[in-house]
């Protein structure tokens, strides 16, 4: 009876942890199989322990090249989307202007559109214009779909900020540029950073839109997609594991820094 009661009281916790397990299981598999030594071309069945792939992560033809293309695109897309998105976010929070609802829907719609629709329509545009598909068309597409997410992240931060801090700066004889650089920008920084981080992740991991508009350029997700047909090298799992570790470390360290700041404040 007491066991039943305990189960009943902790039902939510048990169900929640099971979901967490469901979310993390693939990452565990990816990590474990990065130490596999598969027999055939595909790395889906456990054979024997080996650290070969970790010792030679770039041992597969074209993989590290695609990784470098993805990193370059993600970097430039992040910069582009963050700058354009931050400007829009400031305009939306700080100013009144016409066509506000049109602007809002134009920012909302890319987030509400299935990727395949954006991918297909963008391809019809590029085909009609006779544009050469490749690095630049991918970059254009990535900036387009990352922009909205930056606007949302920055807007949330700027909205919660006290406008009188800027007024105080101006009362203390700071010019508009000085006020912006020394007061506004530092306060908005966490929102901008969150938007930039999200852009980087979205761009680096994008497959559907990239696949339509890449021409013969191969990004890392496209390499993985291709290898799902031809044969999956263990090195893919090495990259996947490394990405997961970097992500955990990044998020953990940002949380620790945030906690420390909060404690200092209190």
């Amino acid at each position, binding site marked *: 009876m007491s066991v039943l009661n305990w189960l009943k009281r902790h039902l*939510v*916790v048990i*169900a*929640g942890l*099971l*979901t967490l397990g*469901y*979310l*993390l*299981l*693939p990452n565990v*598999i990816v990590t474990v199989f990065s130490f596999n030594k598969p027999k055939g071309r595909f790395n*889906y069945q456990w054979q024997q322990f080996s650290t070969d792939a970790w010792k030679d992560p770039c041992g597969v033809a074209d993989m590290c090249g695609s990784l470098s293309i993805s990193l370059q695109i993600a970097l430039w897309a992040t910069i582009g989307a963050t700058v*354009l998105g931050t400007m*829009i976010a*400031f*305009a*939306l929070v700080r*100013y*009144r*202007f016409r066509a506000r609802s049109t602007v*809002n*829907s*134009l*920012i909302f719609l890319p987030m509400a559109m299935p*990727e*395949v*629709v*954006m991918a*297909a*329509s963008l391809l*019809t*545009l590029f*085909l*009609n214009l006779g544009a050469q598909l490749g690095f630049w068309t991918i970059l*254009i597409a990535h900036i*387009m779909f990352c*922009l909205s997410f930056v606007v949302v992240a920055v807007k949330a931060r700027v909205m919660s900020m*006290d*406008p009188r*801090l800027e007024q105080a700066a101006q009362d203390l004889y700071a010019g508009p540029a000085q006020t912006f650089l020394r007061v506004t920008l*530092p*306060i908005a920084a966490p929102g901008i950073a969150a938007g930039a981080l999200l852009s980087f*992740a979205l761009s680096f*991991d994008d*497959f559907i839109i990239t*696949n*339509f508009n890449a021409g013969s350029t191969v990004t*890392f997700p496209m390499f*993985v*997609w291709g290898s799902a047909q031809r044969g*999956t090298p263990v090195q*893919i799992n090495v*990259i*996947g594991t490394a990405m*997961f570790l970097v992500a*955990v470390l990044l*998020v*953990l360290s940002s*949380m620790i820094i945030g906690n420390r700041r909060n404690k200092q404040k209190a």
Partner: protein
Amino acid sequence: MAAVTEAPPLAPAPETKPPRKRGRLVPYWLLLPGILWLIVFFALPMIYQASTSVQTGSLEEGYKVTWHFATYWDALSEYWPQFLRSVAYAAAATVLCLLLGYPLAYLIAFRAGRWRNLIMVLVIAPFFTSFLIRTLAWKTILADSGPVVSTLHTLHVLDVTNWLGWTSGDRVLATPLAVVCGLTYNFLPFMILPLYTSLERIDGRLHEAAGDLYAKPWTTFRKVTFPLSMPGVVSGTLLTFIPAAGDYVNAELLGSTDTRMIGNVIQTQFLRILDYPTAAALSFILMAAILLMVTIYIRKSGTEDLV
């Protein structure tokens, strides 16, 4: 900067702040580059796509707008099973995401205590690893001779799912169940995060008050917690359903030719068969269906809340 953030809180801000007068053109200059980008590379392509869908011709001779609306009819009559399948799979994945995601969001919001941050990291971190690699891992998990399939077989779960048509034979891979499982997995964080945001805003004292008024835990959940989390449920549902309906990665990697979704058809028509008008028409129909849903949603909640 540090001095600013550490300043003691000022008196509460006045309710309405007057809009700034100086620099009437400033907002337009701030908006111009980004909005122009969205117009040229998001809105304009939609128009090009609409125009492509009513063109006829061939790759060699080029396409001309002939207002050939029959393409729509042909596309629908040929691919309606894939449309229906997309809606069914996406709906199933959305319901599963809600059922699986709610307990976890609830756990993070109310029961995690000092573990809250760690669990949040574990929910978000997979999001930053390539989703294609993680989807491929499901091939290993659901492998024919693997522990999952043999357990399901021993428990006679597979007999039930076979009878329902969700699986066939002794396998899970290459069946609808595998595709729905992959879709659920891929879009689960999009359900958990909005749910968590709306649950976290709920005042814990409301639960105590419900308990003081002799509500049992289940009644408290049904009458207090769940209604207050509705905004999260609605946006989580949209954020899961929309991308799931257009997805073709899970159907391609985990499914078979019998589980092809509309995204697969659009992809093949565009990139392999190069039948642009049909592909554009299909994509347009998908967009119209999704837009209809979103519009109904916006009518209810207003755009300002969404962006």
